[in-house]
C-alpha cells in the first residue's frame, strides 16, 4: 500500500485529507514543517520512504516552503535524482505562492478549498509516474 505523509497544522484539514485517502493509501501525519522533515528523514533512513507528501504552506514552527526546501536538500545530499525524489503536492490558499512552491521543490500544487477527485487524480499521476514511464 502506498504511504502518504499529510502535513497540516489544522486538525480538521488533516482529517479531511486522511478521509480522502483512507481507502487508497496508508496516511501518516505531521503537524508542521519541522515534524514533516523529521518524518521524511526517518522514513528515508528506515528504507520505507513516502510515496507522496501533501503539505500545507502556512504553518507554525516551520512553514511548508522551508520544509520542502529541507527535504529536497536532504535528497540532493543523499544522491537522489529528480526522477526518483518523493513527489510533493503543495496545498495553499494563495495563487501568488505557486512560483515559490515550485522554487522550493514542489511538484504540483492545489488551491484551497481542496477538490477531492482532482487531488486524488493528481496524486495517482505523481505516485505512478515511474510505472507509466
Amino acid at each position, binding site marked *: 500500500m502506498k504511504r502518504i505523509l499529510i502535513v*497540516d*497544522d*489544522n*486538525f*480538521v*484539514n488533516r*482529517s*479531511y485529507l486522511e*478521509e*480522502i485517502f483512507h481507502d487508497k493509501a496508508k496516511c501518516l501525519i505531521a503537524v508542521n514543517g519541522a515534524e514533516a522533515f523529521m518524518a521524511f528523514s526517518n522514513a528515508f533512513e528506515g528504507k520505507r520512504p513516502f510515496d507522496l507528501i501533501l503539505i*500545507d504552506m*502556512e504553518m*507554525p514552527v516551520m512553514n511548508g516552503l522551508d520544509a520542502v526546501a529541507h527535504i529536497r536538500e536532504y535528497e540532493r545530499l543523499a544522491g537522489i535524482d529528480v526522477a526518483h525524489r518523493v513527489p510533493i503536492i503543495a496545498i495553499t*490558499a494563495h495563487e501568488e505562492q505557486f512560483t515559490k512552491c515550485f522554487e522550493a521543490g514542489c511538484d504540483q500544487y492545489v488551491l*484551497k*478549498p*481542496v477538490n*477531492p*477527485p482532482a487531488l486524488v487524480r493528481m496524486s495517482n499521476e505523481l505516485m505512478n509516474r515511474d510505472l507509466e514511464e
Partner: protein
Amino acid sequence: MDRDVKLRILNELGDLPVSVYDGLVEKFVLISGEQLVGIVQNVGCGDYDGAAQKAHSMKGAAANLRLHWIFEKVREMEDDIKRHLPQAVIAEKADALSQLLKKI
C-alpha cells in the same frame, strides 16, 4: 445546517460520506471555538502574527468544508488582524463568528 446547503456541499465533495462530513464539521466547530479565544488572547498580547496564523488555519478548514459563510467572516477577521486593528474590533468579529458556529 440547511438540508439543501448540506446536499450541495456533499455533492461538491464527491464521495465523502455524510457521517464523515458531519464529524468533520463537529470537530471544526469545537476547534474553531478554541481558536477564536486564542486569537483574541494573541491580539491582546500584541501577538498579531500568532493570531493571523490561527485565523488562516481556521479559514482553510472552513474552505475545505465548504462553509462559505464562515470562510468569508474569518477572511475579514484575518484581514483586520493583519492590519493590526484594536483588540475590541477583533473580539467583536470573534464573537460574531462564535455565534455563527453555534448555528451550524
